[in-house]
């Protein structure tokens, strides 16, 4: 992912033809959030409260001039998505990490063949 300094973000604009998403996972995370709010699993406002919270935390870190782990809007977006699912008791962190391990091991096995 491209990380830009704030000055660079505002330089050389406007970018009329820039892409909506910079990686497929961003689009996927966005679509999951939209789908969950469409189907009433959570409301968009519930999700947004977490998004504001995650962005606020990242802003504080930036305001102190510290380097933040994982720059980029969709990183906060994904954190907010996880937070709302945790709050609803639907997906917790250990469940997620177990599944991540399983997927990466399965991928690894595929590559060995």
């Amino acid at each position, binding site marked *: 992912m491209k990380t830009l300094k704030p000055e660079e*973000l505002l330089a050389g604009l406007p970018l*009329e033809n820039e892409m909506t998403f910079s990686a497929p996972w961003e689009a996927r995370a*966005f679509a*999951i959030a939209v*789908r969950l709010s469409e189907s009433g699993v959570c409301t968009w406002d519930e999700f947004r409260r977490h998004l504001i919270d995650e962005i606020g935390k990242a802003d504080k870190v930036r305001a102190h001039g510290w380097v933040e782990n994982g720059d980029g809007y969709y990183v906060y977006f994904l954190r907010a998505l996880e937070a709302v699912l945790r709050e609803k008791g639907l997906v917790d962190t250990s469940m997620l990490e177990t599944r991540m391990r399983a997927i990466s091991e399965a991928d690894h096995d595929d590559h060995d063949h």
Partner: protein
Amino acid sequence: MSRNHVTVPTGAALRVKALEAILEEKGLVDPAALDPIVDQYENKVGPRNGARVVAKAWTDSAFRKRLLDDATGAIAELGYGGPEGGYLVAVENTPKVHNLVVCTLCSCYPWPVLGLPPVWYKSFAYRSRAVRDPRGVLKEFGVEIPVDVEIRVWDSSAEQRYIVIPMRPKNTERMSEAQLAELVTRDSMIGVGLVKAQA
């Protein structure tokens, strides 16, 4: 190798894949429903919708009035609505007032008329400076607003989203609504651009 530390973006891609798998298993998300959503926001919903709204407002004074009174209702006349489209407010640029839109807390943006926000709209730099130093920010976008023009900054929220109706440029009297819509840029509807005067 430690698996506790997840790096971005490869970690993020894996995280989303795992999340999707769990949600599918729980019957909460059908993966087949996700591609149409991505397609919708990547290809179908975008600033061209807003440009049509602006061009109609320029050519149809009754529509312009309805738009300024109740933007949500007015854009529905053109078939636009849906998520993040509620509580839309249209603010009009005039020779005395220039409007600029920001969302200081996150990224509230009128999806049905402008699509998803550009990267810089979500950046810390824009969110933190648009309110404090709108003229400075506009200058970086190449927009010089005369000192006697008031700049109004609108901070979006869950309750209200904004679309700027830019000023119609000179020498466009003979253009059709469709031709006018071609002139309207996304940036001009956020207030960081102007619609260029025609020769």
